[in-house]
């Protein structure tokens, strides 16, 4: 089994144009688990030779990284890396480290996608084995571009930051639905209960029991994207019939319903509108 995985990894590594460092999965969701792989056989600095001379140190390889930011847990000292940066020996000269990038780096998705990842692999002690004459026990600086996985969540928003008087789109991925009664919705079955939050009050377009029958609240199936539904509105216009005139809508509250079914304990999503004062 391990051999099959190794062969797959080598094949993927080859497919990624022989890069010394790459991430899987790609495209990548910044808020989900991803793994960084470093293939030392494709690097040129001292670490490759040092590990060839001292293979017993293959469990002492660490990542050192500085972009998109330094790691939240810290790289440690050059002569003594922090444990959180330890890489797993996968096979041969391939090492990996698994993380949720926004948590690992303490960065925003935009920072990750725009900056990419800069890192290197090193031994716990980056100054080890000076007598080998191979320089520091590290690879050269490695750069990984991150291809963003767009709209990978159950609910996605366009634009990411929207004002009450902007066009605002909610995209719902029914494929990620955990409520069994709402799974595998047909093209005409997806409705959304929606309310505007103004101060301490909420103003709903329909009562929950009626939302699944209100054509105003029907989500459109997204062409060529099975299981995805979309709803576009301008909140200040959309809620004008139920909210007080000139109300400052701060949030849009919503959850999915279908004709004849409303979740007993709905999980209400609260989208905070961008408030430009």
């Amino acid at each position: 089994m391990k051999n099959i995985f190794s062969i797959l990894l080598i094949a993927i590594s080859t497919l990624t144009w022989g890069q010394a460092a790459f991430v899987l999965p790609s495209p990548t969701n910044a808020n989900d688990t991803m793994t960084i792989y470093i293939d030392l056989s494709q690097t040129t600095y001292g670490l490759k030779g040092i590990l060839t001379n001292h293979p017993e140190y293959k469990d002492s390889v660490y990542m050192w990284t500085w972009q998109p930011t330094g790691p939240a847990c810290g790289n440690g000292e050059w002569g003594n890396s922090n444990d959180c940066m330890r890489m797993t020996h996968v096979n041969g000269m391939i090492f990996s480290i698994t993380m949720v990038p926004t948590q690992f780096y303490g960065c925003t998705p935009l920072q990750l996608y725009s900056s990419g990842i800069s890192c290197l692999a090193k031994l716990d002690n980056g100054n080890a084995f000076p007598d080998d004459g191979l320089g520091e026990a590290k690879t050269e600086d490695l750069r990984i571009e991150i291809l963003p996985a767009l709209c990978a969540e159950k609910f996605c928003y366009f634009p990411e930051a929207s004002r009450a008087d902007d066009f605002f789109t909610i995209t719902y991925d029914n494929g990620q639905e955990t409520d069994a009664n709402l799974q595998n919705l047909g093209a005409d079955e997806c409705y959304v209960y929606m309310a505007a939050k103004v101060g301490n009050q909420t103003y709903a377009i329909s009562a929950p029991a009626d939302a699944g029958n209100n054509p105003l609240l029907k989500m459109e199936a997204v062409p060529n994207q099975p299981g995805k539904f979309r709803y576009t509105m301008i909140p200040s216009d959309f809620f004008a019939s139920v909210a007080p005139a000139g109300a400052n809508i701060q949030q849009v509250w919503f959850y999915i319903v279908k004709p004849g079914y409303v979740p007993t304990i709905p999980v209400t999503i609260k989208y905070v509108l961008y408030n430009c004062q």
Partner: protein
Amino acid sequence: MKSKIYISIVVFSSIIASCKPEIKGDLGETSNKEIGMDGTWELNQFIVQDPNSPILEERDLSSWYIKDGIQPMRITLDASTHDYSVEITTGRNFLGTSGKWHLDNIYAPSTLILESATDTIEVSMGAMVTANSSNMRLNIDRTCNSTGFKNVIYKFNFNRINP
């Protein structure tokens, strides 16, 4: 001997350079772009771009403005009076209903300024518009004045309807 070679190279290069044709005529007078924009323009496409998306994602929301049997949004720019007016039946009007208009630079404009009774709207020019242009692109950057944060860009593409 060496200097003779250098001199030969210089002379030969000069001969080659002299073969370059002379530029004839001039580039013409710089035109007043306000005159080029004069007329009535009808919306034919509406695009929303998220400037905070890593890939600057765009979506076509033209269907909010262009519906069967309904005249799409129109903007009329009068270059002589500098009056402007907007006719809109469907879709949200981000341009104001009427007022005065002018360009930040009449010869090389980058911004169209629309001054209505209650608001001044600055609209980026997507491309230079001349009297021969059949298309006008206007972009509205929704930027918060207090923070400078730009949350969305609206791209309006108009066709000239009274050439």
